[in-house]
């Protein structure tokens, strides 16, 4: 069924057992994402190393499986990256979801979210955590 492309095993797994779930205390940066159409919210916490890479990352929130899994996979994928690299990955990820033949370079397990291409109404769900991540760097870039 088409729905199985959306809810791949890894997505159901990450939605039920999100990795890096929780908060980081200050001075970690915090960014929030909010989806007014469904009330979903995600907060992302980022701790930077002295050299400006993402040393620690956690998130909290209440959201659908797609959003939880996307955010959970995101935290794994961006850990250790510089802020610029993380934001570049965000663009790659969004292009991957929106454009038919976009490259998936560096996306790793995030490619499991490719099913969203067939469910464009879920694009907001898949990108909410990423907007929260970007929000954490507001005023920093």
């Amino acid at each position, binding site marked *: *069924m*088409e*729905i199985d492309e*959306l*809810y791949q095993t890894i997505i*159901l797994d990450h939605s*039920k057992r999100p990795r890096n779930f929780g908060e980081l205390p200050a001075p970690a940066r915090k960014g929030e994402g909010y989806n007014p*159409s*469904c*009330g*979903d*919210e995600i907060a992302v916490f980022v701790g930077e190393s002295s050299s400006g890479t993402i040393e620690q990352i956690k998130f909290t929130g*209440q*959201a*659908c*499986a*797609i959003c939880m899994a996307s955010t959970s996979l995101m935290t794994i994928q961006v850990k250790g990256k510089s802020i610029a690299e993380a934001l570049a990955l965000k663009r790659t990820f969004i292009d991957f979801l929106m454009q038919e033949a976009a490259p998936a370079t560096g996306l790793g397990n995030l490619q499991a979210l490719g099913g969203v291409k067939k*469910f464009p109404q*879920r694009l907001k*769900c898949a990108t909410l955590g990423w907007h929260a991540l970007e929000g954490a760097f507001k005023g920093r870039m």
Partner: protein
Amino acid sequence: MATDLLACTHRGDFPVLDQKVNGSPLVYLDNAASTQHPACVIDEIARYYREDHANVHRGIHALSSRATKLYEDARACAARFLGADSNDSIIFTRGTTEGINLVASSWGTEHLGPGDIILITEMEHHANLIPWQMAARRTGATLQYLPVHGDEGIIDWSLLDRRFKGSPVRLLAFTHVSNSLGCINPVSQICAEARRNGVITLVDAAQSAGHAPVNVQELGCDFLVFSGHKCCGPTGIGVLYGNPELLADLAPYQFGGEMISSVTYESAQWKSGPHRFEAGTPHIAGAVGLATALDYLDKIGRPAIQTSDHHLGRLAYERLSTLPGMRILGPKTERAGIVSFQLGTIHAHDLVAYADQFGIAMRGGHHCNQPLMRKLGLHATARASFYFYNTESEIDRLVDVLHRASRYFGV
């Protein structure tokens, strides 16, 4: 009662229902968001455009007088539908939202001031909440809420009298049927209490007008609003009923053509009657389609539609209750055909997307009841809402798919 009584005879009137979605027959359970259209409504709108269209109230020619007659006949039809004394108490709007905004703006600006209280309930749709927040801000009045208790959504209406006596409440705006809880508020009792205390009432009949007998004389309300698209009519058209005494000295809401009696470069005078509130070219085809829809509903009979709705709502409640981890909002009995629920830990979006794969159309979200959802500790619920063309076997299919979803998402 004989099951599926109305669906047996009337489901076939709705061409859109006869289709497959994702390989399964469509089960349309999103009626609280918008209902579907019988062929007679679709045909009449097409006929109007093919044969009669021109602008209204402006031309002398044949088409213009036909269009004007149809538009004013539609007003008379809406008046009949609501049991209003006079066609002049019927104002065509874009829908419920615009009707409430019109009252909040025109009536609110003139009659509200610092110290006054606008009373609404905690179960109001955003359309019957935000206009009052804005009116309060503009006029210095205070917005207060009647609390909703528990998942059942109970409002203790017996406290109303004390509330009225204790403070300068000017207006009470409330929904007839809650679009998320499915509960039915005792409108005539509430309006009688308000009238005894000199409080103006506005009834949001978005979820009731097409589902049950709604008679403004019997309800005793001052204002009542509904949307065409929630009762087999087109989108972009709705009705505001106003008590003629209140409408008589109400200022217009928007300004332009159609609503003036004379204009100079310095000033303008308003038409009397409902046209004063209908600035600009109206949605003529919408009004024509709405009238066809209202006549269609009354031919079926709103008491029969109400019985069917309540039957499906109660049945859905009973059958959904058997699912493990099921939490249903709203009362167990005395409910309309609107059933919002949370199934285990499955997020409403996932549940609705899953059901869609089996051809079932439901709603998932906060249903424009965000503060209420927050109060109940919920972010979003799934909602199945019924109309007379739905069948018992569609409820069975819903239950079956929800069982599958529980296994799929592993609750």
